[in-house]
């Protein structure tokens, strides 16, 4: 069922697993930023400034990950339909 076309992972499998990956990066990146800020604060004694800065950086990194992931999906779906609908959009990359 999942390895239908000559043992290759089928499209449904790929889409399901891509859908399963989105979202958790946002949470973990935020927590990693928080933890880095907390331990840097303990080490350097600059409480609470580095905590705030690194928490914000973590949130930004999480959003950036989700954005890059979404762009990857978009590029792949454009690759699928590219043959029939021609070039869409003008992404320079």
């Amino acid at each position: 069922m999942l390895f239908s076309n000559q043992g290759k992972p089928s499209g449904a499998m790929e889409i399901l697993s891509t859908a399963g990956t989105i979202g958790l990066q946002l949470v973990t990146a935020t927590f990693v930023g928080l933890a880095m800020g907390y331990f840097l604060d303990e080490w350097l004694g600059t409480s609470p400034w580095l905590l705030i800065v690194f928490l914000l950086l973590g949130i930004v990194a999480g959003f950036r990950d989700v954005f890059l992931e979404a762009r990857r999906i978009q590029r792949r779906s454009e690759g699928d339909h590219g043959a029939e609908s021609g070039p869409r959009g003008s992404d320079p990359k």
Partner: protein
Amino acid sequence: MAAGLPHPLTYSVIIDEKLGLGLPPHVYYMWMAMIILLTCALMLRGRLQLVPGGMQNVFETAIGGLEDFTVANLGEEGRRVFPFLCSMFIFILVMNYIGLIPGCDAATANVNTNAAMALCVFLYYNYIGIKKWGFGYIKHFMGPMPALAPLMLVLETVSHIARPLSLTLRLFGNIRGEEIVLVLLFVLAPVLGTLPMYFLFILGKTIQAFIFFMLTMIYLKGSLEHAH
């Protein structure tokens, strides 16, 4: 059991009492997965044929398909990293399926197993990147614009450290959740309730193993391709 609902009875408890080693259940089920895979591998190696039949056919189809998928995504360099990717996938798949056997628990339903594997992935893709690019690997962390490089360095560091954490938590959360649902439904309606869930969880467990494989592949792609 780390926390939450305890498994009613696992074989590992009985084995542990016999052996007197005092090891937690997930270690035994990981060993079980290793024994199953090693037995399969040795049996297949003993009678490899030019025209595959039976089990060799199944393995050749699945592994050949995965190799094609990897090469389509990573290019020819994918063949060098494929053994790591594929053994990761099969190992996780077998450990996940062991959780479906009554009286057994999935080894991946414990954070420690997953954290070990995610750390391996983290070290491996960084090793591959450093081996290929040398000191230039740091450009992968800098982003496209030189003016923003210090900011991007911090952002990329945060998101790279978040990768093993999210791999660990995703696999642990999904498999542990499925195990808890199975135990709960078994308490509510012994066989009738759990049997339909098996079909859903076979799908879910395959997808979780595939997600781990696919994300490892994407990370390896990031460290193999040219930086921006």
